[in-house]
């Protein structure tokens, strides 16, 4: 006979578990302590109103959700079928009513499209099945695992009584799962089972349903309007049954509240963005959640991973973006911890490399150090990083010297590499040199911060020689823009970063504009670019062109890129890496991707606060909506953390910001120019679309006039529709599988 279901699990402690009451009390105290820690500031989180996840937009054809936690070495995927999978075992969820199996979820959504308490619905006949799931860390001493709490609510929406059956089964994954946990056993020898009682036996799950072996099930007869609730708890690693039972004694609602408090506190620990644009603010929050969760521990170090599922590895190229994004949005401690983790990737002869043949790692690591360590003020440990950077530069100079001796046309550039990814060719890659130059500039900045000016001057001289050689190589290449490789083969990748952030060329260099024109024309206009095949959209690789567009006054193009980044996100606010343009299908390349999250943060932040030059640039790409009144608080810059407020009214535009010791450039709202000479000490720019404020200025107001002149390089009339408007297709499931080869 099936055990009657429980509505509130905490009030129904099984008799067999009561023997462990003392332990339970201790566990409860520990849990409470853990919750207090999770709560952080202890600020109250308003209760969540129920919402229909199916109303949340998603760009992708299939739903997906991630139950992840910072430092955990596994995560659970909520699969498009509505199951839960952690790379080792899968919990197959089969709700049904009168023999009719519920369909898969249509949408899997986070609260407010960012807060990772996941919701999804399934329906079988008149019965609506509502799922709510969240992840929390396991309690000490296990610090690399997580536990998922799930609550299932079955409601009879019909007018007659209806049967409802919920069956949960733990089993091995399908033969070709989208990912495998690195530490999953080689064989299926380990028994998979639900916990039974408060024993020390290891189990993969706990449930308040009747459990037997690998299955648990409940059958109810629901009166019209009646709701029954079930609860289950899933650890990322098998855990003793008694520990799971103890954890489950805290009601799901309290666990959900703890998760909300943690993430709200974690986001509040960074810079604040109040732009009058809730969708964009939510998108920033979602991106920060992804970056904060995609971190793993290695001993005392932290490392960034590419994704909670199939990219649970470290790539310097992806990690550097994550570090930079965390640094510029105020998560300084996390960014610096990850930068410290990068030191482990330095090879004895000086370079940084994480994956075979990916020689851009050295420049990216140095750039990440500089991004994390110099904002809002140089870290005490900067000398250590300056030393590491100097060794890397010396290695590169050694190579360049050998190349000079070779006399080969491209001998002074980085040698050939075969990244098995990205450019997907064996050649001397332009992106490797662009990033190496970014590394030189970063090394110089780190050395100056470490008060080693003479050495920094020497690096600057070497960078100038490198740039001369780079220009000479471009001339030899006969490319009209910036090719993927010096040999002219390969896919666009690292070369797209040459204008920004690498600044291998000045952003105003015609080659940068030619590159953007070529890439955007192929993609149908500014927005996402494609990779490999025209139907395969890449989320982040073209995002740097958005910042480049900001720096060159192409605001419409920058806005178009931002539109695309915002549009191609799922109902959790995260974004994938590759997906088809035609079917919006991500195949096995599951979202969320950390570099995609970083790309969004970086572009928005640069549109508001840009500090990569010798001038602080504010509102470079502020959108019209933001001008109704926006604030940015605690934004780290090279000249300290600043607060910024800006607004526009009928007469003019106004900025207030924290004083900085350098000139500040203030960009006027789109479609406007100065209506009168700016009051002293402000100075107008040549274009009339910005003003300059001397060091120490904290407020500016200017009179605006309509700007009838066209923005530079607006999209031509013949351009095709850009990849930026994603009505979700309702085509058949399981479209082509986007491919991007990644090593290891």
């Amino acid at each position, binding site marked *: 006979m099936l055990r009657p279901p429980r509505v509130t699990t905490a009030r129904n402690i099984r008799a067999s578990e009561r023997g462990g009451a003392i332990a339970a009390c201790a566990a409860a105290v520990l849990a409470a302590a853990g919750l207090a820690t999770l709560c952080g500031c202890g600020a109250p989180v308003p209760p969540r109103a129920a919402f229909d996840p199916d109303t949340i937009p998603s760009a992708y054809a299939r739903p997906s959700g991630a139950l992840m936690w910072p430092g955990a070495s596994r995560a659970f995927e909520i699969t498009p079928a509505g199951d839960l999978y952690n790379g080792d075992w899968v919990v197959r969820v089969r709700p049904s009513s009168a023999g009719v199996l519920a369909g898969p979820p249509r949408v899997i959504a986070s609260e407010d499209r960012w807060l990772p308490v996941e919701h999804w619905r399934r329906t079988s006949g008149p019965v609506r099945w509502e799922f709510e799931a969240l992840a929390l860390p396991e309690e000490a*001493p*296990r610090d690399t695992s997580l536990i998922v709490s799930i609550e299932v609510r079955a409601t009879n929406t019909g007018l007659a009584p209806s049967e409802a059956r919920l069956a949960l089964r733990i089993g091995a994954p399908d033969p070709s799962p989208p990912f*495998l946990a*690195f*530490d*999953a*056993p*080689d*064989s299926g*020898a*380990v028994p998979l089972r639900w916990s039974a009682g408060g024993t*020390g036996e*290891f189990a993969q799950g706990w449930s308040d349903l009747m459990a037997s072996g690998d299955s648990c099930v409940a059958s109810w007869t629901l009166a019209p309007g009646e709701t029954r609730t079930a609860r289950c708890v899933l650890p990322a*690693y*098998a*855990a*003793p049954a008694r*520990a799971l039972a103890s954890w489950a004694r805290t009601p799901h609602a309290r666990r959900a509240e703890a998760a909300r408090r943690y993430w709200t506190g974690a986001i509040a620990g960074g810079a604040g963005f109040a732009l009058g644009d809730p969708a964009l603010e939510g998108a920033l929050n979602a991106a920060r959640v992804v970056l904060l969760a995609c971190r*793993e521990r*290695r001993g005392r170090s932290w*490392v960034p*991973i590419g994704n909670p599922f199939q990219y*649970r*590895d*470290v*790539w310097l190229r992806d990690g550097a973006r994550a570090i930079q994004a965390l640094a510029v949005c105020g998560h300084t401690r996390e960014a610096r911890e990850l930068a410290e*983790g990068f030191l*482990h*990737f330095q*090879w*004895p*002869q000086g*370079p940084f*490399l*994480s*994956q*075979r*043949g*990916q*020689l851009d790692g050295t420049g990216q690591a140095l750039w990440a150090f500089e991004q994390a360590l110099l904002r809002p003020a140089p870290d005490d440990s900067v000398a250590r990083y300056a030393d590491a950077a100097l060794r890397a530069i010396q290695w590169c100079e*050694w*190579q360049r010297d*050998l*190349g000079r001796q*070779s006399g*080969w046309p491209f001998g002074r550039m980085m*040698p*050939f*590499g*075969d*990244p098995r990814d990205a450019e997907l*060719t*064996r*050649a*001397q890659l332009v992106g490797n040199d662009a990033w190496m130059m970014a590394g030189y500039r970063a090394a110089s900045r780190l050395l100056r911060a470490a008060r080693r000016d003479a050495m920094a001057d020497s690096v600057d001289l070497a960078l100038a020689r490198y740039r001369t050689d780079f220009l000479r190589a471009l001339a030899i290449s006969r490319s009209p823009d910036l090719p993927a*490789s010096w*040999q*002219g*083969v390969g896919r666009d990748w690292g070369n797209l970063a040459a204008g920004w952030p690498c600044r291998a060329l000045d952003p105003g260099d015609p080659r940068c504009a030619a590159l953007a024109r070529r890439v955007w024309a192929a993609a149908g206009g500014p927005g996402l670019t494609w990779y490999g095949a025209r139907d395969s959209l890449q989320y982040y690789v073209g995002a740097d062109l958005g910042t480049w567009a900001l720096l060159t006054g192409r605001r419409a193009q920058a806005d178009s890129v931002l539109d695309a980044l915002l549009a191609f996100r799922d109902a959790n606010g995260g974004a994938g890496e590759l997906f088809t343009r035609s079917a919006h299908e991500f195949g096995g390349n599951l979202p969320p991707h950390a570099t995609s999250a970083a790309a969004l943060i970086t572009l928005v932040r640069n549109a508001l606060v840009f500090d990569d030059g010798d001038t602080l640039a504010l509102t470079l790409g502020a959108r019209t909506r933001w001008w109704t009144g926006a604030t940015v608080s605690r934004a780290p810059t090279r000249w300290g953390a600043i607060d910024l407020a800006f607004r526009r009214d009928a007469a003019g535009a106004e900025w207030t910001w924290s004083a900085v010791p350098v000139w500040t450039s203030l960009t006027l709202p789109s479609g406007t120019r100065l209506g009168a000479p700016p009051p002293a000490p402000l100075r107008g720019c040549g274009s009339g679309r910005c003003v300059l404020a001397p060091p120490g200025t904290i407020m500016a107001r200017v009179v605006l006039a309509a700007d009838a002149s066209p923005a530079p390089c607006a999209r031509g009339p013949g351009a095709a529709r850009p990849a930026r408007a994603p009505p979700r297709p309702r085509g058949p499931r399981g479209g082509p599988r986007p491919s991007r080869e990644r090593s*290891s």
Partner: protein
Amino acid sequence: MSRRDRRSRGASVRAARPAPAPAARAGRVAAPGIALAIVVAAAAAAAWWALRPHPSVAPTTIVSPSEAYRRALRLGLDGRFDESIPMFRLAERAAGVDLARLHVNFAASLYNACFQPRRGGGNIPVSRSSFERVAMMREAIDHADRAARYDMTPARRVFLVRERGEWMQAWGFTWEAFVQYRQAVSADPSSRDQAMHARAFMTLMQHPDRYSLESVPLTP
């Protein structure tokens, strides 16, 4: 033992371990009754600790350094490089072994473990991530450096230099590989194989998109 078994066992041992006693506060004297209770409790805890079933230690894990070396080599020959690494660590203390050879073999095992696929796991590496692989390569290079400090025959030295070149090439450090290959030629000028290999690699460096190392024309 599978990885899962190892992990579960570790976790169960950890869970069964008594919690550390809280530190006594300074300057506070316990009443005699409390002290007696503590003594009794401590004795009971000690008895429980002594009598509880301890996880058995498989006799195969207790090996002498020389036996560990033999096992390490055998595991390496079987392609089980990841398992050979702890054996090599034990073997470093072995007496009477050829230390230069030991370091070379240890380095080779570390290098190979970086690329070792999981058994039955397709292309999934046996190592967790690049963090571990780079650490293994750093250690491999260290062992190769240590091996190079010993006297060795010219042939073995050439082998070691060429080996390092191939490691560097595999990881994408092209100039380092080139330098190693040239050093191999210098160390054994009579070897046509070394000379051809170095020349082929140089051609590949000039025309990486045109050839693979195997397809480079080797006409003198």
